[in-house]
């Protein structure tokens, strides 16, 4: 009995010890905002370059959740983010029209590219018309890796198939392969299967596992990739940090933010082009 009592005494001490190890440092008093954004802004390294400058100037920490555009919009709709930074203008305008966002500000742009195996089985290298290039991929039934995840890039890809008057859904599982995952994971799959894929330029340039993939098609105007930033509407979600969120947006579309975006380089190349400053 005394033995048991002694053991019981050690238990609370042990618990207290573990609590001290695990519980310390989680005080959530820092000033921060949550931004729902796309994998392309994070995977490209842009945000890691730009956000510390904002935090240094304002003392506001920016917490980024990197998702596909469709998923990011849903997170913002649920009120789980203060600011939305994504790249599918029609969805963004819908988000504002539905009352979930206050206003859309254009931030920056770059472009999409079509990449694929260097052997180029569909023969699309240096084609100027991206829709025709996709049509040729479909004709030759060359493997194509699609995001298939309702992301901004996926929506862009579907609109290009539409422009080519092809519905690839019927070929899903054969030459048309929907990975249902992020840009990087899809490029990994394309690299593994030697398939073609549509990618945003920034993720592609920074991607570390290209294997046999090379860039084939770029420069078609329809491959334009604009990013917008929106404050989540406090009328829908009263807990939204409107003041700090708006401060972030003002900074991002203002001179300091736009300069920071312009200054970001991947392998010496500009990756995003600011919308609001004239160079």
């Amino acid at each position, binding site marked *: 009995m005394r033995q048991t009592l002694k053991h019981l005494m050690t238990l609370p001490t042990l618990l207290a010890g573990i609590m001290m190890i695990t519980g310390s440092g989680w005080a959530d008093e820092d000033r921060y905002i949550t931004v729902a954004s796309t994998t392309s802004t994070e995977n490209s390294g842009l945000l890691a370059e730009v956000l510390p400058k904002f935090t240094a100037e304002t003392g506001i920490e920016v917490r980024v959740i990197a998702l596909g555009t469709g998923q990011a919009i849903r997170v913002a709709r649920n*009120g789980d983010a203060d600011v939305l930074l994504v790249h599918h203008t029609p969805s963004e305008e819908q988000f504002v029209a539905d009352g979930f966002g206050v206003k859309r500000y254009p931030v920056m742009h770059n472009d999409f590219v079509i990449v694929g195996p260097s052997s180029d089985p569909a023969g699309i290298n240096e084609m100027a018309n991206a829709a025709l290039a996709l049509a040729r991929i479909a004709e030759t039934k060359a493997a194509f890796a699609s995001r298939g995840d309702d992301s901004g890039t996926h929506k862009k890809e579907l609109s290009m198939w539409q422009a080519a008057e092809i519905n690839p859904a019927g070929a899903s599982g054969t030459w048309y392969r929907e990975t249902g995952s992020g840009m990087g994971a899809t490029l990994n799959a394309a690299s593994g299967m030697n398939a073609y894929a549509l990618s945003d330029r920034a993720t592609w340039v920074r991607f*570390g596992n290209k294997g046999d993939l090379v860039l084939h098609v770029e420069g078609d105007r329809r491959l334009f990739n604009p990013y917008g930033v929106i404050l989540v509407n406090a009328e829908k979600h009263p807990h939204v940090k409107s003041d700090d969120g708006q401060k972030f947006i003002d900074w991002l579309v203002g001179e300091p933010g736009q300069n920071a975006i312009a200054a970001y380089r991947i392998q010496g190349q500009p990756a995003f082009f600011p919308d609001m400053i004239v160079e």
Partner: protein
Amino acid sequence: MADFQTALLTAIELVIRLDPDLMEIVWLSLRISLLAVLFAALIGLPLGAAIALWRFPGRRVLIVLLNAAMGLPPVVVGLVVYLLLSRAGPLGHAGLLFTPTAMVIAQCILVIPIIAALTRQTVTDLHEEYDEYLRSIGCGALRSISTLLWDGRFRLLTAILAGFGRAIAEVGAVLIVGGNIQHVTRVMTTTIALETSKGNLALALGLGLILITLAVAVNATATAVSDTARRHHG
């Protein structure tokens, strides 16, 4: 093969340099998973022992469900916790989504069935040995539970370590409820997933090696402590 070599070198380099980002991520992984296992043990141990000792209607069905729940899909648990903690969900007002606390909750849910089911089996076995003795000293149900849990503590360590293994290794749930936010909710497994998606396969694999080493270290420590205690108490 080159990837494996680079991975090993990357891992060694990161550890030798005591890379501050890596240290932060390792520390957060450990804190979250240890805390989740602690809470899961506080619930799972008595729960498993109670199911082992008490006879009640539906007990056999409960045991089957409990054993099956050891294989709960992390993504589904993550999704459920996400929906509960989202601002649009029933517990949204607490603002817990995308915090380490949310990750502890999700991992705890994954670990409870593992600890409870393994405890149930261990205590059932022990009870067969002890039944007569417990009866002879007129031990009630509650006292029997605490006695059997205490006497089975060295065997139950395995149940707790199995739970820890699940917690530290899973990525599906913590990615959804944590959001993989740098310096806030980024842990070992979500970093590995992120680096894989960036195509930095060697770095991802290097981090994987560190994660496995970490799990081995935790298990070795627990076993060593248990062995020492066993020698002391005979």
